[in-house]
């Protein structure tokens, strides 16, 4: 087992553990802190794949800005322990079974087709272009994918407008 593989499994286990903890924690602050673990572990995974820009953005935007917002909102609302309804337990049993079935199905499919992954960066398993480098990424965003990139700015505008509409004070 190479060191790279070892780091991969360590980070993967960390992110899965963080995600599970995020769901099972009773207090919103604990859930938010678990989410930070997930974000940072994912950033490590991106770095492992050579995507240093995505990894940095993941830390700065998700691990930093977004999480601070989360924690602020939880503090401002003074949110306490979660309340559980009795129905959710009834729905939980088949739900967990179905989720496990889906997970197993997706995992087996991915494992069975491990050899057939195609990427525009590889040619028969040989890496021809490092698409995840920052230079490549910026060329892709501002040349090839400029249209959806600009549309995304409108998407953010819609979200801001929506937040203002739903949260503004009654006039």
């Amino acid at each position, binding site marked *: 087992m190479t060191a790279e593989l070892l780091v991969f499994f360590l980070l993967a286990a960390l992110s899965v553990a963080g995600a599970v903890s995020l769901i099972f924690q009773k207090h919103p602050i604990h859930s938010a802190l678990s989410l930070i673990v997930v974000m940072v572990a994912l950033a490590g995974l991106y770095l492992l794949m050579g995507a240093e820009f995505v990894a940095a953005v993941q830390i700065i935007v998700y691990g930093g800005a977004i999480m601070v917002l989360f924690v602020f909102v939880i503090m401002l609302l003074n949110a306490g322990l979660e309340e559980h309804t009795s129905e959710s337990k009834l729905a939980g049993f088949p739900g967990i079974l179905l989720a496990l079935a889906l997970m197993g199905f997706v995992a087996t499919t991915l494992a069975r087709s491990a050899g057939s992954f195609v*990427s525009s960066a590889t040619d028969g398993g040989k890496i021809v272009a490092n698409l995840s480098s920052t230079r490549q990424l910026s060329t892709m965003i501002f040349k090839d994918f400029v*249209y959806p990139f600009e*549309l995304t700015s*409108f998407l953010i505008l819609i979200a801001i407008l929506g937040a203002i*509409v739903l949260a503004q004070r009654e006039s």
Partner: protein
Amino acid sequence: MFPTPDDFYRVLPEVLWCGFGTLLMLLQPFFKSRQFFTAVAAIAALAGTACSVVAGAFPGPGFNGLIQSDPYSTFFHLLVGLVAFLVVLAAGPYLDRENLPAAEFYALVLFATAGMGVLAGAQELLTAFVGLEMSSIASYVLAGFRRDSLKSGESALKYFLLGSFATAFFLYGIALVYGATGTTQLDKMFAADPHSSLLKLGFAMILIGLGFKVAAAPFQIWTPDVYEGAPTPVTALFSAGPKAGAFALLLRIFATVPAATHLWFWAFWILAVLTMFAGNLGALVQTNIKRLLAYSSIAHAGYILVAFASVTYLGNNLSDGAGPAYAAILFYLVSYALVKIGAFTIVSQIGGTGEKHLALDDYAGLGQRQPWIAATLSLFLLSLLGLPITAGFFGKLYIFKAAVDSHLIWLAVIMAVNSTIGAYYYFRLIVIMYMREPNAEISAAPLVAFPFSIVVVLVITAIATVALGVAPNPILRFILDPALIGNLR
């Protein structure tokens, strides 16, 4: 490669809709008049719709193949633009009545329309994803626009949570398809191995995500609650616009990618049958008109999926007999969108301030009290049912014919059975309007006013419903074009 001017002409409708949406936000602090914002938004909707023709005059792929300008995308741009125009007009009196901010409302409607336009032209999955999100996020906010109403909040929250879940499926599907093919561009997937299980899983996830957006069973649970709680003009938009956009993308995916064809026949077959029964059986027991029309929406999505089963059965070849099946889907979407907007506009007016009068019993005696309105609503209901001289008749006929022509006899039989079930609840409402005596409260209430802009919407939708039911040929000639979908192999 950098974008050329032609690329911008190809997305002119979206540019206009987004631009005018932003303009409305900038004008909001300076103008108080609701009529002014209605006028600006109506002009914006029409201008974008007119520019669909300009976009159509530059056929071919744009932005390195991210979008495709062809008669198919022109058709859907015209449809969602018209839907936006009608919803803008229909919403005016409603905004006054409920004292809601007009500029923000219209800006969201225009942004949502731009998103649907992107869906209509997208031939690359990430672009389609951004379009889908633009239309969805604007929809979530519009559903919760009546902030003082608990039902409206419930509607927005349910739509948002379940919609985000569906979007996650869609996005995961894109990732898997990329893993299997090395591209997100639909027209570059022709070389993909159709037996790759990774590709199948990816398309299945995409199907789940879009199935949610078009309210196909078993992903339809949200529909009645969301349609009931959202402001009625917004419900009119939901039942016509986002549905058309999602169906447009679904059809383009399953028409363009060879690996996504024959294999999916049974998936569409099962979805169609489940959706038809879920919609029609659910509608039987409803006493609230918005819920009734929501279940009828589900049923109609089922009929459209019958044509999808027929398209995939025929192997998607336009020149090889699948053309009429494509035409059936497009024609059905137009006829259905017009009728649903007309019906919801009437429901919105009769609902009154605070949407108090939504029970079927509130329609008792409408035939005597307001004969014109009752007659128009009956026309829409008959079109939903699919009786002759209405657009719904030809819509159903073409889908039925497509199913029979591709030897899907059982599917055609199930569709006929469902249409018969549908007759019960559509006729029940007509019977209530014409045969039942109104109770004392309704007889004492003044007649419901129908302002000018509402009358315009009703006249346009009613005339179009009859016109398409008498002379469907002009539209059919347009959509039976062999070059309908430009990127077909």
